[in-house]
């Protein structure tokens, strides 16, 4: 019995050592380096945001790896700073509004693209998504130019519409994926039971698609939340600003690192949080239809 036990132990240790091959070591090192590259800026940002003044203004001494006296006073300062609070609310409003606009327009479009086969559909779908083929900066001039004529510059609606424009392709893409996973039978069943196409869309298809569409909404929200270029050109000469625009303004009056870092943390937190929350749906949305 005893011999057998030892024998077993030996083999498992043998396997364990044998399991670590050079290729594995290289892969592992690669992953660690990737993590460092991704996490280092986050670490610096968080570190600064909780730094006290003496850890930032060191008078020639090297800046410490961890603040001497970690503090939340920067955040307290932000909460008391009117421009920050107003900008944060502006950002939320713009993001919500752009999510609503792009969903209200994008969802029916996606449904139509998935359900009704018609000539030129692929061309249309490609065109709808082509907005993302150009760098954002390219669309700034035409959008700002148009919005000036429509008197939409320096308005929340204007920024929200611009953001909706940017996010529409994503909404359509995600929503198409969502609708593709919903069996056609449900739609047909509703119609046989007496529902009109519209009734079937609102009472059956939309509720079933809701979790996926919520993911799209959050995605749009985040895209708007941290969008800078369009917001900057549309709001730069007015009194309202979104958080990223405020950050730029604060940057331009040579502030302290720790204040900037605190704003950055406030800007990033919802993105990180929501991305974790909707990750599952994002993947479903992206791969739906691929396995069919």
């Amino acid at each position, binding site marked *: 019995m005893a011999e057998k036990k030892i024998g077993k132990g030996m083999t498992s240790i043998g396997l364990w050592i044998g399991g670590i091959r050079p290729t594995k070591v290289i892969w592992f090192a690669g992953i660690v380096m990737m993590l460092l590259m991704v996490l280092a800026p986050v670490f610096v940002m968080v570190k600064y945001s909780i730094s006290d003044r003496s850890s930032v203004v060191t008078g020639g001494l090297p800046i410490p790896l961890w603040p001497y006296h970690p503090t939340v006073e920067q955040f307290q300062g932000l909460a008391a700073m009117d421009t920050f609070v107003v900008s944060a609310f502006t950002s939320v409003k713009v993001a919500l509004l752009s999510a609503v606009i792009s969903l209200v327009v994008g969802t029916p479009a996606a449904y139509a693209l998935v359900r009704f086969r018609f000539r030129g559909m692929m061309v249309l779908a490609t065109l709808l998504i082509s907005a993302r083929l150009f760098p954002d900066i390219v669309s700034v001039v035409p959008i700002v130019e148009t919005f000036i004529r429509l008197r939409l510059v320096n308005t929340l609606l204007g920024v929200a519409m611009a953001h909706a424009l940017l996010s529409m392709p994503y909404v359509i893409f995600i929503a198409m994926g969502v609708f593709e996973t919903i069996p056609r*039978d449900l739609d047909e069943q509703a119609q046989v*039971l007496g*529902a009109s196409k519209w009734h079937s869309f609102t*009472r059956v298809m939309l509720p079933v698609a809701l979790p996926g569409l919520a993911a799209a909404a959050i995605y749009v929200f985040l895209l708007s939340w941290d969008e800078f270029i369009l917001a900057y050109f549309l709001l730069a000469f007015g009194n309202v600003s979104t958080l990223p625009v405020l950050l730029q303004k604060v940057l331009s009056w040579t502030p302290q690192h720790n204040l900037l870092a605190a704003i950055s943390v406030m800007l990033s937190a919802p993105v990180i949080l929501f991305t974790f929350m909707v990750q599952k749906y994002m993947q479903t949305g992206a791969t739906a239809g691929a396995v069919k």
Partner: protein
Amino acid sequence: MATVKLRSISKEFGASEVIRNLDLVVDHGEFVTLVGPSGCGKTTVLRMVAGLEVITSGHLYIGHVLANHIPPRDRGVSMVFQSYALFPHMTVSENIAFGLKIKKYARSEMLKRIDWALNLLNLQGLESRLPRDLSGGQRQRVAFARAVVVEPEVLLLDEPLSNLDATLRLKMRIELKRIHKKLGATIIYVTHDQIEAMSLSDRVAIMHEGKLAQVGTPKEVYNAPGNAFVAGFIGNPAMNFFNGKIVRRDGGLFVDLGKFELSIPESLCKKCQSHLAREVSLGIRPEHIYDKRASKIESLPGNTIEMVTDVVEPLGDRDIVQVNKDGIHVTLLLDPEIETKPNKPMTIVFDMARCHIFDKETEKSIICTPSHGKTLEEPLLSPLE
């Protein structure tokens, strides 16, 4: 309850014609099954009746109304999909109430009807469950309840039992028959399972490559198949077919199978005269071939062949036995009481009175001329034409 009439219905998908000139009348209160191998177009027919598929040409009447261009919601039909298509975000009750709400039933009437449907399908206690919390059989019953609760003129069932396991399928088959008896509804049922078709229907419509091969009661299609396809499709195990030629010997007619000759009974001779010296296909069901030791009919030179057993499949109540000789394979059903072993000689007796003879080219039966279902009584009322 309504009569459904399909009159030279055709359906084309692009360039391919999937349904060709289909004529079928389903009487009110009748249970008719469309059965056929996959791809024969049976589901397409059902979907055309439901209004989910556009009819390329021909006329569809539900009741006495031309229904070709009536949208699904106004046809007065209900359908149970193969996938059940339960609305996943609604409870059992909400699912069942869906159609009633649209049809604007009064609340008290609605509750009464839901209750009735829940009772009919033994769903009491599951009212507030979501579809994902139900078993396959329960989902199936909810789909049925939702379809019958709106009192449809016609109930369309698309392979509703195919997703259930074998035991449950048998149970639901009986349940379905009971529901039909209770409701007296006009039902069009689609299945690829010929046993389901035979056991459930008043009449069976066998489809093959977009056409009706034969329509008749289960007994008719079993006893008097009009063509080789129906003969081979109905019956389990499938009918044996042998290629041969009709020849005259000593004043009687025989089918010459090359190595053997089987005598055609006198009662069938007259019909076979026309095919004398022509190629035919002889069909005989496994249940109409006997082991000589236990033959129900007299063994004569004209119906008896020596063969060798090949494979024996014991099923308990009967054995399916394959025998062969000289390249001719025969399947027969035997009483398990008689011991049958592989690779042993066996004398088999053909009950030639129950044989079928088909023209080799047209595949039509020489001896049975089936009534092709119901003929369309003319003139049909067609107010919209």
